[in-house]
Structures are given as structure tokens and as C-alpha cells.
């Protein structure tokens, strides 16, 4: 626990390449390269001493010994670096002066030309050292970058082979650890609220990944070996990743975070695709089961109705038998409408996943419905207002016909016999509203909401006409499936009006229509 608190306190938020952390790194580098500096200088001095001894014994002249010293300085700069080479060059200049520039074995210089030679030697040695060191640095940097790019490429390649059916976190965490040689890695997926980690000190690292997500930034540890970065999908933070290990830095954590985010995104889109596919399959299955059920129900019902109506048509039944046959006929008919409406309800449920939307002419729809329900209207006059012509709605024709058909059926059942039914349609406030008005006893205020509930039937309606209690719930379901609504206004004198309103699609952009379709 203590360690965790310490770590959390020691984390530095890095808006840019951090200065504080870098200065620490710089200090550490001084300490680390300190021993190496001494070693370099010592090696340079030893080499210079050896050359001096040999050259002095062999009585080499100034230019020959100068060339040998120059060689040593360049080698030191190649092996150790510029600072070591500078120290070596100063020692070499001293030796040149003392052993090879007249007066020999004295610090003084007689000929001013030798001052020039000495200065030229020093300048040339320093310049060449500087140049070689710089080239070496550059080569090292390039090699580092190449390795980094290779590692990132490796990671991105292996992300492609992740099992999309499995959670991404547990798969990608060991992958990053392996490729980047990190001590430990943690990944926090905000959408799944799940953290995965591998290596030592996993808990702390997971906490760190979570913090990077919460603060939407980069975090770096005091030791500069622990880094955390937010994962973004588009502009939105979607999680965090934390790495601990040597040779890590901003140049590693940022691209690794991007790749991890891509992996998460990939998994998400796959999951979404999967869900849509599963929904589609469920719908197909349901439709298949429903069709099977329809057939299974309708077949025995057909046999029963044929037999009962056949008996009634036969005409040679006693009054009592006729009554019984009529009862069978009536109840089989009721069972049939119950089955039909249950199927309609289930079909709307199934199609909510994907309505088969098309442009539907309101007038055409009303004409179709009246044609289907003509017999049930028992000669009631139906007036359709002119305002319906030219109006179109965007919806599933089958479901809309079922819904409006239920309202017509309802009007036929409960309106005063012989009275007219008026149908109007208009566009108002972004909605196309179809209203069906009939005369008859009003619906009680307490029932006006409840009649749209499944299987609810108002008390006085029960006595008035047979019904299943499903019709109006189908209407409500159909309206809601289209993003619309249905309601009733009922008064003693004015009669009853059912309203069916759908969002008007006339001004909608085609892409908006498409988008609305499958999402529902």
C-alpha cells in the first residue's frame, strides 16, 4: 500500500515532453557516464604515454609524433566520445610541447611557428572528435528508431491476428509486454470497466492506466520507467494503458496506446456486427416459428370451422343441435381471431428489429384497409377526407395496415349501428396524423389509457361485443415501433376518435431514414 501511495504521489503529468523528468534522466546519465569518462580519459592518457615513450626513444620528429597523437585522439573520440577525446588531446599537446618542440624537455617554445603547429593540432583534433561523436550519436538514434518502428509494426501485425471473439485486454497485454520487453503492462477498458495486466506490480499499474483514462492524459513515474497514456477512440477517451520497463518513453507509449485503441475499436465493431447478425438470426427464427405456428393453428381451425359451418348449412338439425353447432362455430371463429392477433403482435415484436420501411401512400393504405374490413363494417358508411390524398408516410406497410385495420375493426364493433365512420389524415407539427371518428357510447376517462394495454377490456365493452383485448395494444405497439403514438378522445356527444400519428418523413434526408431503419 505504501509503495502504491508513493508511486501515485511520484507520478508526473506530462502535457509535453516533460522537463522535470528529463532533468532527472540527465542527472542519472551524468552519474552513469561519469565512470566511463574517467575510463576514457585514463585510456587516452595511457595511449599518449606509450606513444611518447616510443617516439622519444626513436627520436621521431614533431610531425610524425603529432600524427600518432592525432590518431589516438580520434580513436578515443570514436570509442568513448568527445569529452574524453578533448582531455586526451590536451595531454597530447602537453607531451608534444615538452618532448618534441625545441627546447626539448622544457615547457617553453622557442619558435613561434611551433605555437601555430600546436594550436592547429588541438583545433584539428577537437573538430574531428566532435564530428565523429556526432555521427555516432546519429547512427545510434537511427538504430533506436528502426527498432522502435519494427516493434510497432510487429505489434500492429499481431493485433490483426487477435481472436475477435475473445476479449481484447487479456490478449493484447502479454503481446505488448513481449514485444517491448516491458516488466509489466496494464490495460484499462472503460467501456467494459475491465482492467487486465501482466508482470509484477500489476495492481499499481492497473490503477495508473485507470488514472490516465480519468485524467485524459499521459502520466510518467519518478523513475521514468513507468508510463501511462489514455486510449482514445476518435476524440473520446475509451481507456488507459500503462507500461513499466527500461528504455520506455513518450515515443513508445503514445504509439502503443494508439495501437491498443485500434485493437479495442476493432473488437467493438466486430461485436456490434455480431450483435446485429444475432438479432437478424433471432428475427428469422421467430418469423419461421410464427409461420409454422400460423399453419399449425389454422389447419385444425379450418377443419373445425368447415365442419361446424357445414353442419349449420346442412339444415336438418334440431333447434338444440343447431345452437350447439353455432356455439362451436362462434368460438372457433373467436379462437381464429385470437390466433391471428397474437401472430400480428408477435410479428410487430419481431419486426421492431428491422421495419421494412418504404414510402406508403396514406390514401392507398386506407383504401386497402377498408377493402379488407368491408364485411365487418356491416354497411356503415365510411367517409375519407380529401386531405388524405397526396400524403405519404415512411413505414412498414404490413404493420401500418394491421394497426389501422384494428382501429377500423374497433369502430365497426363499438359504434352505433348504421352510423358513419369518418377518416381524416393531415400533416401537423412534423407528424402525419390519421384520425378515425365514430359515433357511439363514450369510453370512460379511466379506461382511455388502459384500453391500449395488452388483454385489457373495458367492463362495458365486454358485454357489448366479443373481442380479444389485443387489438388496441397492437395499434400502440405498431405506432411505437415507428416512433409514433396513438391516443383516443371520447365524449358523450361528439363520439369517439382514435388518433394514429407517425413522424412525418417528408422532409427527412434519405440517409436519416436509412439510419433510423435498422437501429430500431
Amino acid at each position: 500500500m505504501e509503495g502504491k501511495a508513493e508511486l501515485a504521489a511520484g507520478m508526473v503529468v506530462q502535457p509535453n515532453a516533460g522537463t522535470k523528468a528529463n532533468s532527472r534522466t540527465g542527472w542519472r546519465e551524468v552519474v552513469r557516464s561519469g565512470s566511463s569518462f574517467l575510463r576514457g580519459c585514463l585510456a587516452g592518457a595511457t595511449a599518449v604515454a606509450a606513444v611518447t615513450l616510443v617516439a622519444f626513444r626513436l627520436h621521431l620528429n614533431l610531425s610524425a609524433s603529432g600524427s600518432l597523437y592525432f590518431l589516438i585522439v580520434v580513436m578515443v573520440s570514436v570509442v568513448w566520445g568527445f569529452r574524453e577525446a578533448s582531455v586526451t588531446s590536451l595531454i597530447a599537446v602537453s607531451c608534444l610541447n615538452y618532448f618534441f618542440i625545441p627546447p626539448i624537455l622544457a615547457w617553453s617554445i622557442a619558435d613561434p611557428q611551433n605555437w601555430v603547429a600546436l594550436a592547429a593540432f588541438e583545433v584539428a583534433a577537437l573538430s574531428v572528435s566532435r564530428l565523429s561523436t556526432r555521427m555516432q550519436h546519429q547512427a545510434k538514434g537511427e538504430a533506436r528508431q528502426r527498432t522502435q518502428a519494427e516493434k510497432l509494426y510487429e505489434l500492429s501485425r499481431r493485433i490483426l491476428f487477435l481472436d475477435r471473439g475473445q476479449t481484447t485486454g487479456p490478449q493484447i497485454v502479454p503481446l505488448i509486454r513481449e514485444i517491448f520487453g516491458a516488466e509489466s503492462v496494464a490495460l484499462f477498458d472503460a467501456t467494459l470497466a475491465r482492467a487486465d495486466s501482466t508482470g509484477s506490480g500489476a495492481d499499481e499499474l492497473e490503477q495508473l492506466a485507470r488514472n490516465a483514462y480519468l485524467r485524459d492524459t499521459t502520466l510518467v513515474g519518478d523513475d521514468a520507467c513507468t508510463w501511462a497514456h489514455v486510449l482514445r477512440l476518435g476524440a473520446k477517451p475509451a481507456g488507459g494503458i500503462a507500461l513499466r520497463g527500461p528504455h520506455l518513453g513518450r515515443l513508445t507509449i503514445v504509439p502503443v496506446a494508439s495501437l491498443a485503441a485500434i485493437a479495442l475499436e476493432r473488437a467493438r465493431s466486430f461485436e456490434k456486427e455480431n450483435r446485429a447478425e444475432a438479432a437478424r438470426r433471432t428475427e428469422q427464427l421467430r418469423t419461421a416459428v410464427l409461420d409454422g405456428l400460423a399453419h399449425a393453428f389454422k389447419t385444425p381451425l379450418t377443419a373445425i370451422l368447415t365442419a361446424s359451418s357445414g353442419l349449420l348449412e346442412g339444415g336438418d338439425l334440431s333447434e338444440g343441435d343447431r345452437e350447439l353447432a353455432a356455439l362451436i362455430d362462434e368460438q372457433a371463429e373467436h379462437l381464429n381471431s385470437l390466433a391471428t392477433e397474437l401472430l400480428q403482435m408477435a410479428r410487430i415484436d419481431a419486426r421492431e428489429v428491422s421495419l421494412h420501411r418504404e414510402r406508403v401512400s396514406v390514401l392507398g393504405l386506407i383504401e386497402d384497409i377498408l377493402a379488407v374490413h368491408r364485411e365487418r363494417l356491416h354497411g356503415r358508411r365510411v367517409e375519407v377526407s380529401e386531405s388524405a390524398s397526396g400524403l405519404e408516410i415512411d413505414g412498414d406497410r404490413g404493420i401500418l395496415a394491421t394497426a389501422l385495420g384494428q382501429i377500423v375493426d374497433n369502430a365497426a364493433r363499438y359504434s352505433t349501428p348504421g352510423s358513419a365512420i369518418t377518416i381524416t389524415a393531415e400533416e401537423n407539427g412534423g407528424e402525419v396524423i390519421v384520425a378515425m371518428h365514430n359515433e357511439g357510447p363514450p369510453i370512460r376517462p379511466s379506461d382511455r389509457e388502459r384500453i391500449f394495454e395488452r388483454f385489457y377490456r373495458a367492463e362495458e365493452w365486454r358485454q357489448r361485443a366479443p373481442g380479444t383485448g389485443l387489438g388496441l395494444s397492437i395499434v400502440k405497439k405498431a405506432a411505437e415501433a415507428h416512433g409514433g403514438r396513438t391516443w383516443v378522445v371520447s365524449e358523450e356527444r361528439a363520439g369517439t376518435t382514435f388518433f394514429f400519428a407517425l413522424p412525418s418523413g417528408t422532409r427527412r434526408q434519405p440517409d436519416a431514414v436509412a439510419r433510423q431503419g435498422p437501429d430500431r
Partner: protein
Amino acid sequence: MPSHGKVLIVDDDSSIRRALRNTLHGMGFVVDDAATGEAALQLVREAPYDAVLLDISMPGMGGIRACREMRKSVPRLEILMLTVCDSEDDKVAALDAGADDYITKPFHVRELAARIRAAVRRSTGSQADPEAVIRIGNIELDPARRLVRKAGEPVHVTPKEFELLHYLMAHAGLPVTHVRLLRAVWGPEYGSELDYLRTFVRQLRKKLEEDPASPAYLLTDSHIGYRFAEGKTGPAGEVDR
């Protein structure tokens, strides 16, 4: 009891066959039955029938294929398709395959008997003269003089309206699919122009019907097409819904 005609029942369900056989027999029809399309095909090739009741969904070759094959073997056979409600596409497919009419399960025997009687009438009646005047209810259409009368009064109709009305009246009592109607009147390249049809039918209803909103002659077969009512039996649209 004199025979009202010879009928073949084709349904894979034995209880439906039993119920239909007994009921139709009681109503004076001579009845045969078959459980599959294949068996039915064999029967219609061997003996003449006035009408066939053909279930649309059966194992084996199925109702639609059986219908097509029967139409090929016996061109003038009257075929009545038995369909299940909510399968408008099946009904259209059956009519396109050559069925003359359809009836939705479950049905009432009275309705079925009326359809069978109409089919028997068509089957035993002589081939109509294409130029003969057609009279249904108070509507009269004279193809030779291109005249339409309502209750004796001439009604002005456009040439396309006349052709549409002529086609429907020539097939009175039978459902005519949108596609068939469009192709017969407008030409073979048509088929999906439902709006055309709606507009023309609406115009005709205004000219011929007492109450265009509740037509008595020009009936809509929802999702399928149109049907001109048969004079005597009254409106014969869909019954079971």
C-alpha cells in the same frame, strides 16, 4: 340429389379433407380428394373436374408448382387456391402461377360453396364472345362500340379507363393481380406502377360507384389487386381477417 359439379380437394391435412368432403358432398357436389400435388396432378390428367381446391403449402411439389403443372396439362381447369391469412405474397404467387381465385383459411362453407359454384359456372359455360356486351348489376360495357353505361345512362370514360374496366369486367368475380392488370392494359414493360392503377381505379369509382369510399363493383383485394364484383352474389372480397 342432382350434382352441382365435380370437385377435387387437395390438402395434406386429412381432417380438412374429411370435413370438406362431407360438407361439400352434403351440398350436392361430387367430391374426390388427394393428399399431395403429385397425386392430384395424376387425377386431373385422368378425369375431368369442374374445379380444384388446392392447398398452397403442402409437402412435396407444393401448391404453387402443382397449380402451374395443372394449368399446363388442363388449360381450362378452374383452380381455387386455399391460403393462410397474412401471406399476401403467396396469394399473388398463386394467381401468377395460374390460379383463378383464392380463399383464405379458415373459411366458412357458405363462402367456399359460392366460390366453387362460380367456378363450376365458368367451367361449364361456353367461351364468352370477346365482343359481347357485358352487364353486371347496373353497369353495362359494350366492347364493340366502346361504350359504358350506368343505369342506362352513358358514362364518359377515357380509353385507358375503358380498357381497365373491360379487363376487370371480363374477369368479374376473380381477383386480378396488380401486375397482370398493368401488363394487360399498359403493356408488358409495366408491373410496378401501383400509383397509376390507384389513380385510374379511383377515377372509375367516382364515375361508376354510388359511394366511391365503399365500392360495390370495383373492389380492392388488399395487397393483391382488384376484383370486379359478380352481379348476383354481391361483393366477393376477402372474408376472413
